[in-house]
C-alpha cells in the first residue's frame, strides 16, 4: 500500500480512537495516537493476516505490550475489516467486548490479552520460539512504551530473544518521551534506548514513527536481518494529530469532553 493511502487510513484510525474514548468517558488517548501510524502500517501493509480468517495458519501476530493503547488496536482492526467500527464505541462499558485493556477471548484479531506492562514482550519470545520450532513462517511484532521498557522483564525478554536468535521477532518502541508522571527523563531515564538494545544483541533501527516511508523501510530491514531480533526505535509524539493533546502528559489517561472531541475530529479531517 502506498504511503498516501496509509496516511488516510491512519487519520481514520485516529478519529475512531477519539470517538471511542470520548464515548467511554475514560481511556488513554495520548499513547493510542502516538502509535497510530505504526499500528496502521502493521495491519495494512506489513503483516500477513486475513480479517476473514483471524486464526489463519502461518499468520503474522501483533501483541500490544503497552495494552493501555487498546483503542489504537481496536481501531486498526475495525478499519481493516475484522468488525464494524461502530462496535468499538461500546469501549469500556459493562458487557462490552472492547475492554479497557485488550482481551484475546473477546475481540477477533487480538492475539494476547495485555494491560500489565512488560509481559507482552516476553510472551512474544515464546510465540517466536514456537514458530521456529514449528517452522511456521509467521512473524511476531510487539509494540512497547518507552516508559514500559523500565520494567526489568523487558530486558529479560530482550536477552532471551537475542540468545535464541529470534529473527522472526520485531519489537517497536513507541518513543514519545512521556509516561504518566511526566517525561521519561524526569521519572526514570531510559536513554540510550538504541544502545541498550544493541548491547543485548539486537539489530536496531531508529526512525520517525510518523513517517510511513521510514516505518515500512524499517520493517523491510527487520525481515532481511538474519540471526537476531530487530528493535525499531520509533520517535513519536504523544497525542500526535490533535494539537491540544500533542506532547502533553496530561492526556495520557483522560477522555476528551464533547467540545474537545469535536475539535480533535475536525483537526483530523473526520466527520463528527
Amino acid at each position: 500500500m502506498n504511503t498516501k493511502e496509509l496516511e488516510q487510513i491512519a487519520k481514520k484510525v485516529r478519529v475512531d480512537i477519539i470517538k471511542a474514548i470520548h464515548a467511554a468517558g475514560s481511556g488513554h488517548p495520548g499513547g493510542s495516537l502516538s502509535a497510530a501510524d505504526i499500528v496502521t502500517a502493521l495491519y495494512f501493509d506489513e503483516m500477513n493476516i486475513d480479517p476473514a480468517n483471524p486464526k489463519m495458519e502461518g499468520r503474522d501476530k501483533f501483541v500490544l505490550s503497552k495494552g493501555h493503547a487498546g483503542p489504537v488496536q481496536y481501531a486498526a482492526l475495525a478499519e481493516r475489516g475484522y468488525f464494524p467500527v461502530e462496535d468499538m464505541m461500546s469501549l469500556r462499558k459493562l458487557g462490552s467486548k472492547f475492554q479497557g485493556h485488550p482481551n484475546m477471548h473477546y475481540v477477533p484479531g487480538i492475539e494476547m490479552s495485555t494491560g500489565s506492562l512488560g509481559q507482552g514482550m516476553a510472551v512474544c519470545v515464546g510465540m517466536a520460539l514456537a514458530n521456529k520450532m514449528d517452522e511456521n513462517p509467521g512473524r511476531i511484532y510487539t509494540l512497547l512504551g518507552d516508559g514500559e521498557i523500565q520494567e526489568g522483564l523487558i530486558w529479560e525478554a530482550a536477552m532471551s530473544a537475542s540468545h535464541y536468535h529470534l529473527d522472526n521477532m520485531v519489537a517497536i518502541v513507541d518513543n514519545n518521551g512521556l509516561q504518566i508522571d511526566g517525561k521519561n527523563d524526569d521519572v526514570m531515564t531510559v536513554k540510550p534506548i538504541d544502545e541498550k538494545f544493541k548491547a543485548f544483541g539486537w539489530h536496531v533501527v531508529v526512525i520517525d514513527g510518523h513517517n510511513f516511508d521510514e516505518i515500512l523501510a524499517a520493517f523491510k530491514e527487520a525481515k532481511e536481518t538474519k540471526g537476531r531480533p530487530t528493535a525499531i526505535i520509533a520517535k513519536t509524539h504523544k497525542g500526535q494529530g490533535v494539537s491540544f493533546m500533542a506532547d502533553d502528559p496530561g492526556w495520557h489517561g483522560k477522555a476528551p469532553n464533547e467540545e474537545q472531541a469535536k475539535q480533535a475530529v475536525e483537526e483530523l479531517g473526520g466527520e463528527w
Partner: protein
Amino acid sequence: MEKMATRKAYGQALVEIGSENQNLVVMDADLSGSTMTKEFKKVYPERFFNMGIAEQDLYAAAAGLALSGKVVCASTFAMFAAGRAFEIIRNSIGYTGANVKICATHAGITVGEDGASHQTFEDLALMRTIPKMTVVNPSDGVSAKKLIKQAVAMDGPCYIRLGRAEVPVFYEEDADISLGKGNLLKDGKDVTIIATGIMVNEAMMAASDLEKEGISARVIDMHTIKPLDEEIILKAAKETGKVVTAEEHSVIGGLGSAVAEVVVKNCPVKMAMVGQMDTFGESGKPDQLKEKYGMTSKDIYEKVKSLF
C-alpha cells in the same frame, strides 16, 4: 454522607506524618498522581523517589532503604504491588522484616473501566500468607488515615490496601481505631456480618434492611486482616451463631478464609461469604460491577437470609 477515596486519605496522611517523622521516605512507580504520593512529593521532594515503571525494583529498593534505617511507604496499584512484586516482598521485605509499608491503591472491582487486568482480588490472600506481614484494609477515609499512621509508627512490614473510588466517610474524627482490633459498629444477636474495606458500609446498609425483617445483625469492621482479632470473631460466633463475611476480594484466601480458619477451629457455626466468586472482573462503572459481581448490600442481605 461525605465521600472520600481511601487513597486520598493516604496522600494527606503522608504529608502529616512527613512533618513529624524526618525518617519517612516515600516511593512510587510512575503512578504518583493516582496513588496520591504526589502530595508528599510536593512538600518533601528530597524524600521522594520515583522508580519508574519497575515494581520489582520499587519494593527491593524500598527494602534496602528500610534496612538502612528509613521507614518507607512504597506505592503502586495493588495488582502490581502484591502481584508483580510478590516474591520480592516475600523475600526482601517479609523474610528480612524490613520496615516497609506497601501502600497499594486501586484494589478490587471498583477500579472500574480499566478492567480485569487491573482489578486484583488476590492481594489480601497473597499478603496474609507471608510471615511477619501485617495486612490492613481500611473502610473509609478517617480510619484509613488513622491506620496508616499506626502502621508507620510500628516496626516491620505492612500491606495497606486502598481504593480508587470515593466511598462514604462514616467514622467520626475521634473514633477509636487500633491496628489489630476489629471495630464493633452495630450490635446484634441473630447473625454477625464481618466486613472489610468498602464492604463495611454495604454491611451497615444490609444490617438496617435485615432489621426491618426482624433479623438483628451485628456488624464488625475487620480493617486488620492480619493479625486477626480472634477474640471479637469468637465472641460473635458464640453469641450470634451465624457469620457472614464480606470483602471486595476473592472468596478464596481473603477475609472469609481467615475468619473461617478461626471459626472452624474454635467454634464452628454456619458461615457464608460475600466477595468475588473465583472469576476475573471486566470493564464497567464501579457500581455496575459491584452489582454484577455480587458485592453490594443486597448480596450481603441475601447471604444472611440463606443462613436462616
